[in-house]
């Protein structure tokens, strides 16, 4: 792969994202919501002291789990299917480039767009928090930001996989929304149901729940914010007991594995399918 070609395609993908009204809307909502949560969270600082910081970051966590997967899935889903449907992908692949270079360039551009929005949202929120509280817990905040970027990457990968597989943009976007509903809302119910029917042990429950990347994100983000994993039930307590100090690293690796698997499968499918 040639870096100049990758940079050219990634740059175009970033420009396309900037022109995409959904992306602009997500960026605006995420930044404003992050700032709003910071302001609201710290409004009771005098009363709650440092608890205000925790409250703000916990609210940010909820915001991240809702918005970032949706943004990654939709941007990924629109990326390749949209170009294939318009026919522009064919013109790009007719140039002296390989399918893998095109896929990698588009992936890098989409990842950069999502990471950019996450960075802006966290910078705005972080700057406000830093101005109003001590910097004791900045490490946790930065961990949350990094894990959020990773969560975005996982969902960009899943969105790209749907995009290369689906014949039409509408199909890819519809499937992306279905995946979002599943990982954000339905998965917990599914895990609870499975646990009750199959009488899973806490260990089995943990591995079943890791089939949802958002769960892995919770397991890495909550300890970073000095939150307790008890809120995640027996699987959370089990993870804390078994993995101990390795919990964050293991869960970050789970997220990275999710991203690598989704992107790898998407690249393979794209290479096989070609421009049509």
């Amino acid at each position, binding site marked *: 792969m040639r870096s100049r070609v990758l940079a050219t*395609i990634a740059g175009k993908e970033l420009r396309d994202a900037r022109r995409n009204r959904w992306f602009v809307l997500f960026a605006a909502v995420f930044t404003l919501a992050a700032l709003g949560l910071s302001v609201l969270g710290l409004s009771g600082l005098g009363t709650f002291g440092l608890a205000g910081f925790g409250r703000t970051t916990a609210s940010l966590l909820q915001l991240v789990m809702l918005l970032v997967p949706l943004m990654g899935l939709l941007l990924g889903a629109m990326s390749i299917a949209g170009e294939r449907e318009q026919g522009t992908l064919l013109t790009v692949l007719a140039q002296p480039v390989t399918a893998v270079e095109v896929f990698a360039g588009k992936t890098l551009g989409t990842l950069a767009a999502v990471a950019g929005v996450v960075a802006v949202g966290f910078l705005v929120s972080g700057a406000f928090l830093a101005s109003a509280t001590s910097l004791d817990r900045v490490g946790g905040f930065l961990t949350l930001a990094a894990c959020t970027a990773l969560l975005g990457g996982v969902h960009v990968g899943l969105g790209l996989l749907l995009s290369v597989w689906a014949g039409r943009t509408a199909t890819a976007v519809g499937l992306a929304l279905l995946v979002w509903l599943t990982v954000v809302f339905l998965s917990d119910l599914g895990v609870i149901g499975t646990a009750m029917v199959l009488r899973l042990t806490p260990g089995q429950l943990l591995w079943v729940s890791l089939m949802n990347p958002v769960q892995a994100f919770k397991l890495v983000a909550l300890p970073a914010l000095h939150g307790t994993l008890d809120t995640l039930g027996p699987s959370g307590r089990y993870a804390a007991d078994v993995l101990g100090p390795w919990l964050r690293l293991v869960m970050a690796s789970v997220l990275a594995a999710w991203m690598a698997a989704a992107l790898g499968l998407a690249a393979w499918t794209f290479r096989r399918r070609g421009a049509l």
Partner: protein
Amino acid sequence: MPHDALHDCSPAAALSARRLTKRFGRLTALDAVDLEVARGETVVLWGPNGAGKTTLLRCLLGIVPYEGQASVLGLDARRQGREARRLLGYAPQEVRFPIDEPVSEVCTFYARLRQVEPRQADALLDEWGLTALAATPVGALSGGMKQKLALAVALLGDPPILLLDEPASHLDVATRHELMGLLRRLAERGKTLLLCSHRAGDIWRLAQRVIVLRQGRKVADGPPEAAAAEIGGRAILWITVLEGRAADAALVLSRHGFSVHPNGAQLWVGGTIGRRAEPLARLQEAGIPVLDLDVESEG
């Protein structure tokens, strides 16, 4: 794989295909097509819509999976696709660039992909009369201007071989004339041209050879005069009938000895020397309304 397909494509040829076959599910879009285009030759691929012309170009570009062999100046289109595509300039039938991108941005993007200096893109825009439109979004261009832009992009990097899919299909008469002049100049400069067309006329005048495709098979390959004879004489009518009546109209005209190729709601009607008015009368008799008529210049 058939034995013939194992033979190497000729390294001397600019473009070469051996038993090239492409299937989309049950549909065979290309059926064991052999093709050879010499360096500097201008060849027209002729056939109605669905004949396999566009698919053949995509196979030569190595951007769709296929069976058989295809090569570009001796490079395997599939295994050495990137190197082969460096030698090819391609303009698709429907010009497909992002509609909200300015012309200059489109050119710069493709120049970078071809690892060409951006000033060459500027020079091409200038040569094609597109400099004044550099800041205009592609979506605001006329059909002719979009086609010019596609050709300018195809010429980035000065590739020795051009694959142009229906290059004149969306052009008005003046722009079409201009395009023919440019293609002639490119041919004189030694470029190898493979042009797809579902119409005869002026494009054929450029050709040293015409390859006729029908339902994915090569049915004729020779000088334009011979190809014209093969597809039914030199006098050609384009008749447009109501959507859904083209098949009936084709049946009526074939019964009366005309050579007919339906192309959507249009019918290409050959073999009309001395009886050009007759197809209209026959269709009227059969109760098939004719919406439009175009008489194409001969051979």
